[in-house]
């Protein structure tokens, strides 16, 4: 429960002043009951919500009468190696013309989060892609197949930081003459 009137910024210092002119006040009011933390990004406001309450928060942001975030722009993930995986949602309101970035951080040993397809249908394919690239499981997703990967290659996750790039394969056969010694 956010009881403070002054929102705090994610980086240590000065609260309040850095978030003036943003929509943090309305967002905080809409997310009543959810511990949210805000910081100012380069262009948009970034709000951190705990993963367990993410769908409730997104739905509140969508149905709020002043905010009206009816358009999901982008849904992706960032692999911060030891600190977990951030799921990032970019929201936009077609009526009120403002933007918001919502983040939920998942710890590395518990990569489960609820699906947002019940809030916007646009999340469907975006979550499928995030799941196969990072290994995150979206609970309740209506269609958890791979999107961009072949169906039989869903056990490795390319966009994780510990996934290596491929080695350049040697030319094969036909007397081309390239062997391990020639490299």
């Amino acid at each position, binding site marked *: 429960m956010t009881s403070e009137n002054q929102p705090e910024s994610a980086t240590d210092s000065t609260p309040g002043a850095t978030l003036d002119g943003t929509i943090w006040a309305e967002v905080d009011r809409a997310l009543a009951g959810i511990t949210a933390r805000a910081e100012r990004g380069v262009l948009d406001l970034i709000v951190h919500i705990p993963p367990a309450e993410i769908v409730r928060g997104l739905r509140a942001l969508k149905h709020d009468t002043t905010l009206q975030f009816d358009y999901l722009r982008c849904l992706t993930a960032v692999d911060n190696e030891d600190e977990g995986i951030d799921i990032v949602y970019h929201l936009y309101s077609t009526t009120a013309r403002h933007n918001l970035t919502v983040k939920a951080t998942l710890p590395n040993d518990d990569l489960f989060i609820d699906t947002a397809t019940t809030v916007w249908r646009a999340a469907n394919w975006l979550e499928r892609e995030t799941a196969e690239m990072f290994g995150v499981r979206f609970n309740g997703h209506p269609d958890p197949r791979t999107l961009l*990967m072949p169906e039989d290659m869903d056990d490795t996750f*390319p966009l994780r930081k510990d996934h290596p*790039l491929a080695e*350049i*394969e040697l030319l094969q056969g036909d007397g081309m003459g390239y062997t391990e010694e020639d490299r």
Partner: protein
Amino acid sequence: MAVTSDPTAVSPAAVPAATTIAEPATEPATAPAQPATEPVILPVIPGEHPAEAPRLEPVEVHPGKALYKQILPGVMQIPLDLVLGASRKSSLWPMTFGLACCAIEMIATYMAHNDLDRFGIVPWPSPRQSDVMIVAGTVTKKMAPAVKLLYEQMPNPKWVISMGACATNGGPYTRYDRVLQGVDKIIPVDVYVPGCPPRPEALIDALISLQELIMEERGATGR
């Protein structure tokens, strides 16, 4: 004299003299009967042999020159494999297999600015009736079975042009592990075209090289 309207009446002047025998045909007209006053001369059609010309004459044969060329002038003799090679190269129908960005340059080569139709090259969607497969673009591991299947669906003789850097060895995406590092890992390739994407002129150059390759193969049926 008056023109009679009776079709059966024949004016006496039109009847040749030989038929003035008044007797109707009670006897078979075996003999032309009495010789007419004027002999019947058949007209001579110019160019044909007159009846008196000698029909058979020995032909002078010059050794060292083919017999048929001396009897029947105007006939060429060409080896059959040359004809097969020329006909194969002059009507190459590529299967439209544009995968990625190189497909746009391939389409640009088909269009009016750099015309490929003047070489007899017509894009054809179906693999069953096409000769050459221009692999234009990156082949990913998800797409590789489809590429192999399409190659096997093409009837012989068939050739493959690998267009662009991605089809040659993976191109700029070669370090990604879901990309096939070159299409020659699954199908045999005849001509490689470098570039990212190659210019239409480069693709035309590749197709002309393929035509020269086909002429060198001379219609071999082992493909």
